[in-house]
């Protein structure tokens, strides 16, 4: 071709041919057009009387796609198959835009009214799914609640390549995103009818009569679909669904399997933990008001975590939920409120653990969870792959160990039945037999760089005492008082003689001086316990941390809801003011605020105090 292909399309408004073929006469028999696809353009030569359809066939061979996938746009007009190019005013040098639709729906769907006109290309109909006037279906392509869930499907294929694969999933996607399917599915009445009348569905509804209400609420339906799309969630649900022998918790009046027993929880990760705690504090709340599966989702992690030492098997998670505000802690943490602060040290671990638990998605590579520390919202939560039962059990066991902090009374109740089931015993056995695993879990996966030494110590600590004993001991108010005193002493030590900190490091571990109520302090976490020189700079932070642990312990019986709120949330206003005043170190700000329990001016004094003692 003698022409230079330029990148900028030519303005063809005036209809004046921009170029003349040098070796062809400017006869009306042949037209040279520029075909422009997103990303590139090419020249094409066609006869004038070529119909659009023929041109499309030519293009489909060129672009390796189906004719139906092609959409030709000229001057803002869609070129229909029956047109000819000349009739549409396409002249030399004009630019025709081509859009290749992805994965076009198969015509195998029997929607007789799809092609009202034989003249109109079927693809045109599909493309006009929102505007078609020729469809007889009663579908109201409106804002049906089902559509939001489904509309995500077409959004996804839009990003797909144009190449047509005949793979199963793509094929399915094609079918799904076909306009006619969309219309069908968007007819809520129709869909409801379909679903309700399906024998499996009816069976399900007989077993769980409350499930039917899901179908009645579009919001619930959408949430359910969202959740259902997550495989991990389904797995969780499947596990929890198994009927549990233990239903000893009076606060769980519901008798539905699995999801029933979980109080309603808002699905949104944006929910403050306070909201969650409200939910949790009303175990007798009518579960019908909400989406049981959402609640299930929210309750899964709590369910997993909540267990006390006897660690009811995974199947029992659901019922354990209502009475454990620990779950609320864990859930919130799972929802990426990273600084939920459980009341005591062990809940710290559980907090981390749970987050680790929810965020891990590999077998035993706990270190992964460290990277997922940052709030990730709900997506983090469903990312759990409880693919292996033993793994889950291990988690359970370890988590059960940790989670007792918040409501130790309840934990004690549960611990009264240490061998409530053989599974529990096996869980405990598993935990004890895998000390490294337990240690890892306990330490909170936020610190993958923990020293082996640390783990060993903690492990020894664990093994020395029966798990239940530990938790019972912690439940003893005098014991917690003693711990408090120890912490105070340590805090004093840190203030006075930080160099001594590494010496007492082991004790600090045992007291749960794990980093941060929240994972947002990862940088202060690796306390290189074995390097004395690190102790000094860490001293002030140690103070802050001990302060937080102290506060947590102190407020254990106090204000759980307040406690559970992440410090960052509680102190957000103060953080703002501090930042406005020029204290740029968010980390230090938060530490100071936590230490001063939200007192901005005291925090400022603290911040201004030289950090090196």
């Amino acid at each position, binding site marked *: 071709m003698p022409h230079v292909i330029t990148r900028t399309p030519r303005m063809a408004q005036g209809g004046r041919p921009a170029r003349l073929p040098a070796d062809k006469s400017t006869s009306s028999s042949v037209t040279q057009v520029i075909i422009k696809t997103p990303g590139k353009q090419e020249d094409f030569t066609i006869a004038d009387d070529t119909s659009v359809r023929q041109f499309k066939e030519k293009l489909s061979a060129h672009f390796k796609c189906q004719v139906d996938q092609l959409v030709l746009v000229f*001057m803002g007009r*869609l070129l229909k198959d029956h047109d000819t190019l000349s009739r549409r005013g396409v002249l030399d040098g004009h630019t025709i835009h081509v859009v*290749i639709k992805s994965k076009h729906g198969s015509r195998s769907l029997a929607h007789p009214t799809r092609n009202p006109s034989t003249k109109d290309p079927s693809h045109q109909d599909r493309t006009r799914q929102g505007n078609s006037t020729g469809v007889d279906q009663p579908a109201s392509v409106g804002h049906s609640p089902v559509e939001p869930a489904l509309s995500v499907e077409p959004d996804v294929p839009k990003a797909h390549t144009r190449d047509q694969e005949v793979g199963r999933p793509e094929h399915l996607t094609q079918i799904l995103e076909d306009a006619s399917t969309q219309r069908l599915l968007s007819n809520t009445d129709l869909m409801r009818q379909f679903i309700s009348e399906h024998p499996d569905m009816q069976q399900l509804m007989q077993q769980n009569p409350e499930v039917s209400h899901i179908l009645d609420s579009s919001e619930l339906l959408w949430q359910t679909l969202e959740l259902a799309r997550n495989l991990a969630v389904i797995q969780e649900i499947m596990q929890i669904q198994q009927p549990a022998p233990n239903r000893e918790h009076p606060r769980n009046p519901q008798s539905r399997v699995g999801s029933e027993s979980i109080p309603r929880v808002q699905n949104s990760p944006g929910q403050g933990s306070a909201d969650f705690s409200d939910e949790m504090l009303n175990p007798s709340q009518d579960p019908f008001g909400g989406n049981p599966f959402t609640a299930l989702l929210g309750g899964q992690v709590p369910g997993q975590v909540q267990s006390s030492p006897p660690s009811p098997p995974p199947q029992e998670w659901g019922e354990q939920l209502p009475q454990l505000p620990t779950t609320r802690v864990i859930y919130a943490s799972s929802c990426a409120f990273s600084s939920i602060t459980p009341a005591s040290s062990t809940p710290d671990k559980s907090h981390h653990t749970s987050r680790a638990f929810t965020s891990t998605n590999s077998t035993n590579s706990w270190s992964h969870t460290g990277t997922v520390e940052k709030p990730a919202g709900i997506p983090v939560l469903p990312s759990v792959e409880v693919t292996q039962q033993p793994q889950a059990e291990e988690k359970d066991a370890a988590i059960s160990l940790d989670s007792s902090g918040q409501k130790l009374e309840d934990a004690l109740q549960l611990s009264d039945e240490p061998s409530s089931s053989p599974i529990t015993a096996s869980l405990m056995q598993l935990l004890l037999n895998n000390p490294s695993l337990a240690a890892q879990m306990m330490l909170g996966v936020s610190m993958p760089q923990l020293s082996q030494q640390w783990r060993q110590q903690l492990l020894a600590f664990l093994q020395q005492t029966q798990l239940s004993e530990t938790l019972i001991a912690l439940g003893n108010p005098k014991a917690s008082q003693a711990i408090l005193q120890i912490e105070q002493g340590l805090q004093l030590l840190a203030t006075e003689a930080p160099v001594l900190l590494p010496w007492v490091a082991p004790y600090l571990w045992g007291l749960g001086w794990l980093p941060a109520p929240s994972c947002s302090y990862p940088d202060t976490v690796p306390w290189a316990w074995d390097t004395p020189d690190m102790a000094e700079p860490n001293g002030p932070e140690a103070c802050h941390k001990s302060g937080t642990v102290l506060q947590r312990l102190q407020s254990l019986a106090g204000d759980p809801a307040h406690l559970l709120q992440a410090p960052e949330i509680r102190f957000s206003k103060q953080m703002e003011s501090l930042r406005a005043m020029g204290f740029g170190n968010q980390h230090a700000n938060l530490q100071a605020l936590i230490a001063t329990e939200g007192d901005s001016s005291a925090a400022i004094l603290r911040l201004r105090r030289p950090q090196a003692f």
Partner: protein
Amino acid sequence: MEPPNLYPVKLYVYDLSKGLARRLSPIMLGKQLEGIWHTSIVVHKDEFFFGSGGISSCPPGGTLLGPPDSVVDVGSTEVTEEIFLEYLSSLGESLFRGEAYNLFEHNCNTFSNEVAQFLTGRKIPSYITDLPSEVLSTCSPVLPSPSLEPDQLYPGLSTTAEQRDHSMLAPAFVQNPGMCLSHCT
């Protein structure tokens, strides 16, 4: 045959300098610039624009820039929303990826121009597309001005380099008198 539906296509033009460019450009650049233009295409009741975060959309006038300073009627199109979104997504994978953003060579106005031509066959007014060359032809590149706090210019979207760049340009008039706007990306 059913009559084709025609959808109006509008170009929203925003002056990022909010009038400062018109007043100060003769002093600072030596030539008159009417504004620092940011554009977006509005069609199917959505506003589409390109930034360093890629192609984005929002309700018309829904960016932090507020209502547009002027609206240009580009024409009308038969392209349906579905086709348009497909087109945009393939654009977003090819020409208009987020990292392809270049303040002068390949910016929001480039995108608006491209889309306008796709939708209607028409280009956007030349005074918009000529802006980078106008600015570049003035003086030599200079330090970028301290930018505004890169808060969310576009609600719900992370700050794009374009917004930062634009915000750099705008205060450049104010904060760097006598210095050129050219921002080396």
